[in-house]
């Protein structure tokens, strides 16, 4: 019990953020029409590429004087993450473009 309380107090701000973000996520997404399930999923998928910031921090402070395993894997992490980000947003935009195109035709 004491260990748990200790853990909570030290990380209290973060735990607050998690708890509130979960509710925020549920609130923001609920009642989404099924037409938008795919673009929503794909757009959210692109946001999960936010791990790129981690990659930038890693490689940003890595030792570049020699080609270490850490450097190579870090660069790979950045490439993977940006694939997720760029590909994700572009694919989502392409899907939504189709919805848009049809709309103007009807109007």
């Amino acid at each position, binding site marked *: 019990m004491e260990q748990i309380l200790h853990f909570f107090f030290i990380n209290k701000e973060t735990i607050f953020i998690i708890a509130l973000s979960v509710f925020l996520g549920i609130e923001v997404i609920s009642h989404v029409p099924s037409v938008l399930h795919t673009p929503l999923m794909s757009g959210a998928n692109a946001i999960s590429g936010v791990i790129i910031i981690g990659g930038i921090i890693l490689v940003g402070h890595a030792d570049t004087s020699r080609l270490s395993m850490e450097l190579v894997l870090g660069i790979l992490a950045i490439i993977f993450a940006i694939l997720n980000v*760029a590909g994700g947003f572009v694919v989502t935009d392409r899907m939504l473009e189709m919805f848009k195109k049809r709309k103007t035709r009807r109007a």
Partner: protein
Amino acid sequence: MDQILGTLDGTPFTRGEAILELSYLIAALLFVYGLKLLSHPETARRGNFYAAGGMLLGMLTTLLLHKNSNGQGIPITNVLIILTAIGIGTVIGWIFARRIKMTAMPQMVSFFNATGGAASMLVGMLEFPNADMNNLGGVLVTLLGLVIGAIAFSGSMIAYGKLDGKIGDIRSGLMKYVNLLLLITTIALTVYLLFAGGIPEEHTWALYLLTALSLLYGVLFVMPIGGADMPVVISLLNSLTGIAAAMAGFIYSNQAMILGGILVGAAGTILTVLMCKAMNRSLLNVIIGAFGSTGSSSAGKDEGILKEATFSDAAILLSYSQNVVIVPGYGLAVAQAQHVCRELDTLLAGKGVNVRYAIHPVAGRMPGHMNVLLAEADVPYSQLVEMDSINPDMPNTDVVVIIGANDVVNPAAITDPGSPIAGMPIIRAFEAKNILVMKRGRGKGYAGIENELFTNDKTRMLYGNAKETLQKLVSEIKSL
């Protein structure tokens, strides 16, 4: 930027650090607002743009303003390396996303999800050696980011292979136990590392083993799941990638990463629950119990006869109807028949027929699959009707045309309590006055159960590839 603004808890902070945190706040708000806009058809495109803007902002300010614990910024050599990596990734991602066919969209989404998971896995692996083994919380988030990222990566790659038709389903009764054992081992190893103490270098072997186990679990966990369960798995994997990114966010105490990741995790979880509801199954049931192997269906009670229709019969039937409902399924996507389907629809509309599409939430292989597919073929949004709204109209429907759908119209879900799909909400096609079924062959649906709709007296079958069948039907109607 290096000007010291003040102190917080005794540690001085600079103007740059304050601006960096402020930019993370703006990025996080853009994620939330973008996602909010994404859930309305009118504003969706703008929402996607805002979220992308938030990402760009977070990346830029990190690159320019981030400092390590010694207060050093990112050296110019590293900046150049990072920019090169970002450039390469962006170009590849952009080309993939632009070139891909709309019908291959589920694969693409899975693939991008896999790369995000891989990035989280790598960040977890690389940060472990820097972890303080006595800081329980720190080690926990590092390991969770690694494990969840690895599962999301290998799982999504398998999902990608399945959707692309490169990998088949492997189902065996033994798999359930192997997976459970693997999951327990992975958790046990994580717990061991958590309390191992000492220095991280001593535990490198365990870290590699943990990575390997997680990757293997991802593969084996997705392997037996397929077909109609794909939308559930894809949204679940999506939410895992978000959670993995959030875990990595804790390592750096980066609020933008934490909020973005959790937001995606929560959104993905909701979508997963929605998909499960649409099948009246629990998530556990989808993951553990593969279709077909459970439930004692009262199959074979009366086999019934399948009655084939000629194209001219079908053409006349459709042309002289008032209300036609098309039920698209995965078969439409596989045959890439959405454009011909649209042609049929406009042709009939020209004859004064009211044509609508009935969309089942889990039709296809990802959430909303049919909507995207039909949108590509320019089918107006207003013509797509959700299951609950179309069902009351079914008795007044002259012809229901089922294109490559099976389980979502199987009346056994209502009539046969012993059926594996018992209780799953279906499109009540059996209530229509006439039923036309386009089907590749006489085989069963993904669930491997008989569909008594096909042997219904009102039903006529059109066998063959959906695209070719539709083309023949269209030319037949034109020649009437």
